[in-house]
């Protein structure tokens, strides 16, 4: 268990760094969604199921959707 969570934290940090480093905004947004998703799993490991559900539904789901919508209304919408 400890190893799994440490490993997940590493994935989370890598995804966060990737979210900043990607030039492509869509990849960035997806990486940020991955951060939220791993965070949701980590919340579950920390015995916080309520928070895990909220983070998965709101943080990973809706926020990512809103970001993608905004992206397609701005830069993506123009180029295509």
């Amino acid at each position, binding site marked *: 268990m400890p190893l799994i969570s440490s490993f997940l934290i590493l994935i989370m940090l890598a995804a966060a760094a990737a979210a*900043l480093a990607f030039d492509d905004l869509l990849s960035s947004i997806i990486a940020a969604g991955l951060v939220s998703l791993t965070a949701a799993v980590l919340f579950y490991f920390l015995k916080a199921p309520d928070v895990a559900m909220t983070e998965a539904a709101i943080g990973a789901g809706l926020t990512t959707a809103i970001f993608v919508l905004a*992206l397609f*209304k701005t830069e993506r919408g123009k180029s295509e």
Partner: protein
Amino acid sequence: MLNFLEEWSFFGGSILLIFIGLYGVLSRKNMIKILISLGLMDTGVNLLLVALGYVEAANAPIINSVNPSNAAAFVDPIPQALVLTSIVIGTAVLALGLALVMKIYDKYSTLNISEIRGLKW
């Protein structure tokens, strides 16, 4: 040793996430990326708060058929309640920020803050 690793990887990981976010907010020029970084900071601080309330070998704070009484050890419910609030507030701020980004993009046709008068720093 393993417990030590687990505990400190949570603290260290969430603090690092906050600082990756802070670095992103300060260094990125794309408005959507700045908001993404702000979201990362939010996630980091939420994770840290929950980790501060974690008790080793304790249960999720729900009394049910698995833990039928409060005599069992539970993790701290208060940080969890705070984080519930904080996640929703964070999303609200991000959504408002994205609406502003869309409006600013309508005006300047760019997401780059160095091309937008009034956002340069």
